[in-house]
Structure formats: structure tokens, C-alpha cells
């Protein structure tokens, strides 16, 4: 029993008179890693936040399959918030909020720290970690929650290639474990590496959606072609 597919039904986000996103009608299914592409201001982050429930739709609906969907998803932000406590306590925090039994917490924390390569730093205060370590901690924090769906909002925008690679490996491992990945990025190489399918947003609406290889080789729309060639203004 999964919380997917996620259905957006004529969903709109607006601020005052400005429509920022939508109307969007789309379905996100279990399985493929979905990468959302688009120029700045296309509404990528907004779409993730809408799906994740951080902002409400101004009109339309966001529907998950089944009850209790929120507790079975997680999100990694571009700039993760590091709680002012140890690395281990940061991972434990999310488990505490979701009322995971105490006996179950320790093994999950240990597994998450190991998966993110943070076990040696477990007792370090989280705010002093480097940007790459912080993002890995953000991933360890969601790893421990074992989400069915993970949203990532430009998770490597501030990271060097080495740290980016580390983040991608963790995301891959999560996906291999059955977690649905929905992410945004501005890094086209990363998109080519990670994407199974691409949703191309422009001006708040889906311009094109399709299998990743096809999207990058033969985009179907002039806008997407222009975007991939780096000549899309806005």
C-alpha cells in the first residue's frame, strides 16, 4: 500500500492577483526518479512545496493516495536547517516527532548516519559541519524516516563536485530502496545523471513531460529546446 500516485487536480498557487503556478493537472507515480526542470521563476520549488503540503493550493486539489500520507514523505531543502545540537540528535529529532519507538530509534539513526557517511561525526555539533556535510546530514535525517517519497529542492546548488557526488549517491541508494525521488535542479549534468523522467516547467505550467533520455535528445517543444540550448530568456 503506497501513498502514490500523487495527483494534482487543476492545482493553482497564486499570490494576490498573480498566478505563480498552475493550473496543473498531473500524476506522479511510484518508481521513476522525476526531475523537475525549468528556468528561474518557473515554479519548481513552489511545485515541490505544494506537493509536500508546505503551501496550500489556492485552487484545485493535491491528492495523495490513502491516509496519513504526510508522515510517509520527506523533503530536503537547498539550504538545510541544522538544529543546534549534535549530528546524532538532528537525526533523532525527526524520529521523535514521528513517535518512532525508542528501541527502534538507535538502529535507524546508526543506519542513516552510516548511509550518509557521517558516523564519525555523530557527536559533532551540526551547525559547524561544512555545507556538504550539512546536506548529507539532511539526507541522513530523512533516511531515518524511511519515506516513501522524497522531495529534493536543488539539493546540491551550493556544493562542490565531490559533495554533489556524495549527495547523488545517497539519493541513488534511497531510490534503490524503493523511495520515489522528486527533485529540482539547475545542473543539467546532474539531471542527465539522475532523471528517469523530466517535467519541464515554464511560467508555472508544465510545458513538456517525458522520459529523460528522450527529453534531452529530442525535446518536443520549442521552449524546452531553447531551455536546453541555454537561450531561453523567460
Amino acid at each position: 500500500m503506497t501513498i502514490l500516485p500523487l495527483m494534482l487536480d487543476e492545482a493553482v498557487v497564486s499570490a494576490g492577483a498573480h498566478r505563480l503556478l498552475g493550473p496543473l493537472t498531473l500524476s506522479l507515480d511510484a518508481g521513476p526518479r522525476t526531475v523537475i526542470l525549468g528556468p528561474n521563476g518557473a515554479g519548481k520549488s513552489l511545485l515541490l512545496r505544494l506537493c509536500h503540503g508546505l503551501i496550500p493550493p489556492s485552487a484545485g486539489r493535491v491528492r495523495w493516495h490513502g491516509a496519513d500520507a504526510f508522515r510517509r514523505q520527506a523533503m530536503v531543502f537547498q539550504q538545510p536547517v541544522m538544529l543546534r545540537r549534535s549530528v546524532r540528535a538532528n537525526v533523532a529529532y525527526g524520529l521523535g516527532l514521528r513517535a518512532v519507538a525508542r528501541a527502534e530509534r538507535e538502529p535507524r539513526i546508526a543506519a542513516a548516519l552510516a548511509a550518509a557517511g557521517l558516523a564519525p561525526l555523530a557527536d559533532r555539533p551540526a551547525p559547524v559541519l561544512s555545507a556538504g556535510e550539512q546536506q548529507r546530514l539532511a539526507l541522513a535525517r530523512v533516511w531515518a524516516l524511511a519515506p516513501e517519497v522524497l522531495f529534493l529542492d536543488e539539493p546540491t546548488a551550493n556544493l562542490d563536485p565531490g559533495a554533489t557526488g556524495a549527495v547523488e549517491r545517497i539519493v541513488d541508494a534511497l531510490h534503490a530502496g524503493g523511495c520515489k525521488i522528486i527533485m529540482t535542479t539547475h545542473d543539467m549534468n546532474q539531471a542527465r545523471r539522475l532523471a528517469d523522467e523530466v517535467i519541464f516547467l515554464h511560467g508555472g505550467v508544465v510545458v513538456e513531460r517525458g522520459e529523460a533520455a528522450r527529453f534531452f535528445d529530442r525535446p518536443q517543444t520549442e521552449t524546452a529546446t531553447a531551455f536546453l540550448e541555454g537561450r531561453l530568456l523567460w
Partner: protein
Amino acid sequence: MSELGTASILALRLIATLDAELVEIVARSLAVSLSAVVLAAAVGLPLGAAVAVYRFPGRRALVVLLNALMGLPPVFVGLMLYVLLSRAGPLGFLGLLFTPTAMVIAQAVLITPIIAALSHRVLRDLYEGYREQLCSLGARPWDAVGTLLWDARVSLVTVVMAGFGRASAEVGAVLIVGGNIAHLTRVMTTTIALETSKGNLALALALGLILLLVAVGVNAAAAVIPGFAPGTGVRFGPAAQRLDRPSVGRSRLSDGEGRLSDGEGRLSDGEGR
């Protein structure tokens, strides 16, 4: 030698010999002000955090009120409590007037708004950065209150010390509700006022010196506490990832499931970079 000089020497002697009356007064002062600060922190810190987290009608008005109450005149608080606690007053049956308990209440009333307003300022800023992350992890508002209080603990110590400074230096309210009764409700500030008017400068000066030392000590402690040391202050500024936009309306989640949500619908836009 001037009168001041003589008095100063006497004052130092009182301190050096741990004069019984002096010690008693200092101890009572600290007991009263510490009790008041504990009470005020127990109310003010959660209040400040709750006002930073919860969205409810009248929140802004409450913030304005708390800020205004920071400047509450001590004599006014003393007067109101006097009226309430006096034998004919509504709380007269408690028999608290002219007791240390009344003084604790007076100081707590004075500094609770200070602690609440200052902690609200600290925590509101912190919460701006935390809100989406905590919400995403599944925190309810009450969880967020606890998290903010813990994560801002260093700043909040400074806030509580500001409250203690104000409580221990205050004279008007404790004079009115305490009555400055020897061996019962006489504290440093009221003694200084009394002894000065009697011309007994030595005891007044000795107490003044100690009061000054307490104030300096409190502020030094606040300065020494590493508010911006590694491990507490290194964080990406929330201002860098936020773009204020007009309202998008109330969150369905805040209504339905009691999850965290900013009723003001502030959108964080990650697209900007």
C-alpha cells in the same frame, strides 16, 4: 577626609566583615529576585515562543502589548498589587501584603513582559528559518515551541539575565508591596533608599556597591556566554532564502491536521538563485 570617603571605608569594612545585617539583606534580595525571575521565565519564555509560532487573531496586538509592557512603571505595578493584596482588596484574604511573596509577585509581573517580548524577538527570527524544515519533519506547533526554546537557549539566557537585572535593580514596586520592614521585607534597593534618606551612607554605599557588582556580574556572565561561538551561530541566514510575497490564504493543513503552517501564507521561493 570627606564624608563620602569615610562612608566608603565603612562600607568596605561592612562587606569585608560580612556584616550580619548586610548579608541578610543581600541574601533576601537575591532570593526574591531569583524567585521572581524563575517565575517570569517559566511564563515568559513559553509565551514568547508561542507568540512566535502560533498564528491567531490578535497576535500582532499581543506583540505590541508585550513590547509596551516592557516599560511598565514599577511604582504603578506596586500600586496595583497593593490595591489587590491589601486587606480590603479582592486578594486580601491571602494575607500577602508586606511579605516577600508579594515582592516576588511584583517583580515577576514587572519582568514577565520583558522576558516574553525579548524572547519573542529572538525566536521569531529563528522560526523564520526553521518553519519549513520543522513542518516538513512533521512538527506540530507545540513541538516547534520546544525546539525553538532549546535551540535558542544561549540567547535566551541573555534574555533571562536582562530580566534578572531589571528585577534586582527595581525599587518602587517592592517598596510599596513589601513595606521595607526590617528583617522581613528589606532588600538592597529599599534599604539604600531608606538609609540614604536617614543619612546613613555607609550601609547604603555598601549595598550600592554589592548591587553594582551583581549587575556587572550578570552582564559579564551574559557577555562571556558564547552566543556566537561555533556550534551555535553558524547557519545559513534565513533571510537569504526567503522572498516575501503577499498572502496565498490559509493552509488547509493548518486547519485540518493541526500541522505547522503560517497562516500568513508566506511563500519561500527557492527559484531565486
